[in-house]
């Protein structure tokens, strides 16, 4: 189970999602800009961003759940939210996705609405 709550810390809305698809990722937000001079000397310019990490989860849900997710994103796009992921790891941060795309994934017999939609959540941790 994937739990999304917002805004932090006074939660007013909780979004429950199924576990994400395989392919979730995490990456450092830090960047390195290498600059090499003509004599071969290498200089690096870094942005460590305090070690923050950027997470991406992708979900396959029913149409209604995707709309619920869209409403959540619309409401808290600029707020700090809390995510308890499928491994019960808690992340605090901001949603960085823009735009949110709901992509049809085909028919889903037995699901509410009979259609499956995919979307991704991107979160950059707030340290």
């Amino acid at each position: 189970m994937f739990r999304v709550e917002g805004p932090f810390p006074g939660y007013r809305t909780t979004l429950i999602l199924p576990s994400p698809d395989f392919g979730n990722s995490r990456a450092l937000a830090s960047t390195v800009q290498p600059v090499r001079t003509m004599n071969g000397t290498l200089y690096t310019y870094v942005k460590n961003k305090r070690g923050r990490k950027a997470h991406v989860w992708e979900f396959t849900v029913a149409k209604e759940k995707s709309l619920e997710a869209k409403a959540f994103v619309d409401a808290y796009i600029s707020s700090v939210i809390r995510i308890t992921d499928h491994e019960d790891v808690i992340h605090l941060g901001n949603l960085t996705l823009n735009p949110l795309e709901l992509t049809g994934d085909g028919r889903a017999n037995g699901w509410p609405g009979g259609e499956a939609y995919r979307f991704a959540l991107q979160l950059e941790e707030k340290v």
Partner: protein
Amino acid sequence: MYLRPSRHGGFARNDAESAYPELWAGLTGAWVPALGASVSSRAVNNVGTVIEDLSGFGPGMFGDGPTEIRGEVAGGPSLQFAATTLGYVEMSHPGGRLFRANGATIVVHKQKTDGTNRNATIFGNVAGVAAAICRLYAPDASGNAVFEFGGNTGTNELSISGLTFGDDVWVCRAGTRGLYVWQNGVLVGSSSTPVTFSNNTTTWRWNGGVSTSSDLCRSKVMLTFDRELSDQDALLLSRDPLAPFVVKHPLKLIAGGGGAILDNDISQSLNLGQDATPTIERQVSASSTLALAGLAVAEIGVEKNVESELGFTDLAEGFVFPGDIQHVSHDLGLTDSAVGDNASTEEPTSSLALIQSVSVVGPTYVDVHVIMGLEHGAGGSIGVPWLPIEVEHSLGLSQLAGRARPQSVTSTLSLTGAAFRRQEVQSTLSLVQTVAGGEGIDLSTQNVNLSHVVLVNAAFLRSFLHNNFLQQSLTYFIDNSCARKEYNRYQGEGEGDGIEEKPLLFNSDFVLESLSGPKLIVRLRSPEMDDRDRSGFNRVNRETRGGELNVFSDPAWPNINTLLVTITALKQTKIEELQEFLLTTLGQQIKLQDWKGRSWAGVITTPGDVATEDERNAWTMSFEFEGEPYEGQAIDDRIAFDQYVLPVGPVEREGDPGALSLDQYVSATLESP
């Protein structure tokens, strides 16, 4: 043969009757109630009982206190001293006449009857001056045996500790050779400093000598000599204080029947018994030597039957006719028994020699039998268990039968050795059979049966389990060319050697190591096969208006080497470790050891590359590393051409030739592909 002295069997009364006449030399006093000393009960409670002197030199002794002669002690009656005050007997004359100034030996027996040590001497004189002291504490109040002669200090006193006191025979010798004390056949103390004695007129006492003190004890004998006995004599007396009274009594037993004797009975009955029952715990030796010769001579036609038995009965009787079997047999049983109370040496030994001989003239049947049974038993129920127990059989059998025919020699011997308590069992058997001459009707046979048995009272079994302790693993490698993936970097045809490649080190880890700050090391699995080693250049490409391409690159311009790796199937903990490393070493030079074992120095330029979880707890991450290998680490990456390459034909150059510093040219003819 000698007879033991006893009050009933008699004893030697002088040196001529004694088996040890030398022990009568210098014998100045011999009071031996064990031999039935004269008793004259002239008063109540044995007061005034006279113990006669047997030496013929000293006076008798009489008791003034509660002393009596009792016969309850084995070996004869003894004096019993039953009071701790005035419980002694004393000589009616001064004791000074018993010794000489520079030589004395006193033999005394003492059996304490209680466990209290007192300062009372077993013998002594009522000392007037210190130089006249001659006395023995056995023991004194502190538990030591103290022999004083000519004084009670310094070299005139011999104090011996560590002894036990019970039923003991003491021999004390003093004089020019110093002070010596034997106890039960053992020299227990000595001092080599000569001592002298001053005769005096004080009274010689038995179980007294210091004021009126006396000890509770029994005593059988006291002997005094006015000389220093030899060590051998002193040792003998300490073992057998009655040795001077052993009667010399040689026995001569002659039995025989000669001539033509019919119905002649020869019978000898001899009872020899030696009893060695010592009062001391030392080696015991008891031996009997007996030579019996039974001879029966008969004319032809008379049965000759000679037997020797331990009952000492020889028989010669009956008649037989010529050619009858002549039977000669010995039945002899020897039993030696040694019983001791301590762990001293005990060696029961049986020596038996049987010689049977039948000499026959004529073709009569000859049969010689030797039937012998030896049983040795050694029991370790007493003594010290770690001392060895030896059971040994030594048996020599010689059989000889000489006759024309047939000949049959057979030896059948069965030895059984059994040992308990970790003893070695060993049987050594040697059988030699010889058949000389005759006809080989019956082959000589040997039947040897040796059985070794070791009995073990305890068996220690161990069961060894290794369920969680020992593990086994097997690693194998099929060595063939495919498995080794033979690698030849040189691809092509024709002559020429490929550039030597450093052996692939597939077992190397992919290691990231920080070079500054805290030492961080991250070990990852080797990356995927799609790794890239990218080499970037700096050059200038210009195309003239006429369409001519001019390319320029300064050798001093740097080349940029970049490694692009993708590592898959990393666990989340490893991803977190890697990203922590990337954050800590952000923009800093690190050391990278690739899967070939080569080490690089450089910077990870894409720390923000995403790590994707492709499968459950299986993450994939890529990054780029920009750096250079350490010197000598990658010989294939920087090839040093040591031969010039000369192109065919002139080199066309544009612009300022000085701006180009190419010094490489091709001198070989390149073959077209």
